[in-house]
Structure formats: structure tokens, C-alpha cells
């Protein structure tokens, strides 16, 4: 399967993502809801559970998910589309949105896993629609951002910062 080389998320689509995450957070009483790209980058996050370590958390959760898909393959299983991690106080439910994004819900024992499963499925369906629009729109929007001036400025910054 050809992977996309870029994904460009517009204001409008981010607003749609945030509305979906916010509703999910509210309806499940979760402490945090995040949308990650499968490469580990955090697209959006809501709630107050993990704000400080959000970058590391994104990398680790995406890594764990990617690893579990390799486990599925070794077992001859088509795919594992969700992971549930259970702790003493906090639980994490991660589910795949198409082949591109991961929806992550962090919740405590006051929230029932069944509720999380059902509502995350609904949220995921909405995010699939957003993702389809984002993919369709990416190349058009990219040229408005990534131009010669931008590339040249980033190169200068790389020379300035990436040194001893």
C-alpha cells in the first residue's frame, strides 16, 4: 500500500476533529482523548490527564500499536484494530481510524469500557469522514504553505541550530 508523503490539516478540519474529540471526552467522562497519526505525531488532544508528556506519549502509543500489528501478522491474524491497556487507576483504549490515525481514550475506573468502545466507534466513524476530506485536500493546500521561502528559512534554521 502506498503511504502518503504528507497530510495537511486545515483549520476547518481541525475544528471538526476537535469537536469530535471534545464530545467523546464529555460523553465518556474520560480524562484525555487524543488523535495521533500512526507515525506517532499528536494531531490533537483534549483533557487534562497527560498534557505535560503528550509528545512522548504519542510516540509510545503509536509504537505499541504498530508493534501489536506485527504480532497480529505473526499469529496469522488479519489485524488488531484496538488495544486496551488496563492500570490500577487509569486505562487506555486505542483504536485505529482507517489505516492512518489512532484514536486514544484515557479514562479511569468510573467509566465503563463498554461505553468507551461504543462511543469511540461512533467518533471513529466521524473521523474517517474527516480523514477522507483531508486526504482529498492535501496537495492543494500544501502548495500554499510549503514554498521556496519556507524551505529556505528552514534550511537556514537547521544550519543554525543543528550543531555542537
Amino acid at each position, binding site marked *: 500500500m502506498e*503511504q502518503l508523503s504528507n*497530510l495537511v490539516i486545515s483549520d476547518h478540519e481541525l*475544528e471538526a476533529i476537535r469537536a469530535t474529540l471534545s464530545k467523546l471526552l464529555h460523553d465518556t467522562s474520560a480524562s484525555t482523548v487524543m488523535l495521533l497519526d500512526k507515525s506517532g505525531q499528536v*494531531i490533537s488532544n483534549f483533557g487534562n490527564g497527560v498534557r505535560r508528556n503528550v509528545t*512522548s506519549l504519542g*510516540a509510545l502509543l503509536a*509504537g505499541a500499536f504498530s508493534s501489536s500489528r*506485527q504480532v497480529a501478522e505473526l499469529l496469522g491474524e488479519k489485524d488488531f484494530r484496538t488495544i486496551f491497556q488496563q492500570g490500577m487507576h487509569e486505562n487506555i483504549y486505542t483504536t485505529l481510524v482507517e489505516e492512518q490515525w489512532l484514536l486514544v481514550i484515557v479514562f479511569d475506573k468510573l467509566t465503563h469500557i463498554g461505553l468507551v468502545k461504543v462511543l469511540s466507534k461512533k467518533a471513529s466513524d466521524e473521523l474517517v469522514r474527516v480523514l477522507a476530506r483531508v486526504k482529498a485536500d492535501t496537495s492543494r493546500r500544501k502548495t500554499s504553505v510549503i514554498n521556496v521561502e519556507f524551505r529556505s528559512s*528552514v534550511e537556514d534554521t537547521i544550519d543554525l541550530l543543528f550543531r*555542537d
Partner: protein
Amino acid sequence: MALINIATHEIHCKIVYYGIGYCGKTTNLQYVYKSINPAIRGEMLSIATETERTLFFDFLPLDLGTVHGFRTRFHLYTVPGQILYERTRLAVLNGADGIVFVVDSQAEKFEENVQSIAELEMYMRRLGKDLSHFPFVMQWNKRDLPSALPVHVLDRYLNRRRVPAFEAVASSGIGVFATLRAISKSVIAQL
């Protein structure tokens, strides 16, 4: 896969350091972490075994700050080099925007390097990517060791695509930033 978030004015890119066990991938990241301006780096995360071999990956986020209105971030990852972790390497490669192939220059590691680069080529094909059209640089590491093969030999057999290659002694930092600058620029050029 680079993520360009117009709404939050952020760009994220993922760079993966690939290579055989003990070739110096983690050492590259550790040197960057130690030497770069602390204001632009986040915490380095290592998932290692008790003997400090990489088990899953190392992770180092770098933040260039706002450039031309966009906050630009590079996330550096290493793969575990040991042969038994091949599936984990594929998991970490997922979504990469650029790859640094770190070569252990020692003659006795030559065959292992050849196998590792063949494995990388295979994985990239599985991910639907062609290394010939992908941000990719080589690093000839451990140039200080007595059994290091001459660079022209490494270049002939391991760098068939003639991508940019850098001599390095990662443990003392030689070549580490030159490699990082090259792969970062290559990733930005491909955005």
C-alpha cells in the same frame, strides 16, 4: 509521513536511524541530546533492555521553533539493531519521512551491514516507498577503529544509490550533526 497542521501552524517530520546492533544509532541521538541547545530539545526516551541494548526504540523530539510562521518539529527515532527485533524495526519505520543508515565501518561487520541494508530496502517496499526517491543518507561510523574499511569500499558496496554519506565517530560527536543536518534538509526538500 509529515504532518502539516495549518490550523495550529505546526509541521512534524519523523527521522529514523537504522542499522545493525552496536553500530551507534543510540549514540548519535545521545550526542545530539547532550550537545544541542537544551531549549530546542525535549526529553529523550529510551526503551532498552537491562543491558542497555535498545529493545523498542529511542525517541528524541527537536523543535526548531517558528520558521516562516510554522512551528517545525523533527522527531528522531532509532530502531533496535539486533537481528531478532526485525518486526520491531518495521513497526518503528512506519510513517518515517527520512532515514539515516548508520554503518559500522569495521571489516568484520561488513556482511551484517549488507544484510541490514537489504532488509531496509525490503521493508520500504512493503511500506510502499522507494528508497531511491526518499530522503536517505548514510553515515560511516566508527572511523577511528583500526579495522575500519576504507570509505571508497563502503561507498561502492553499501551506497549503490550514491546518496550523501558522512564519516563519523559518533561516540565523540564527529559527523553526528553533519548527518542530522543533511537528513533534515532532505526531508524538508521532499515535503
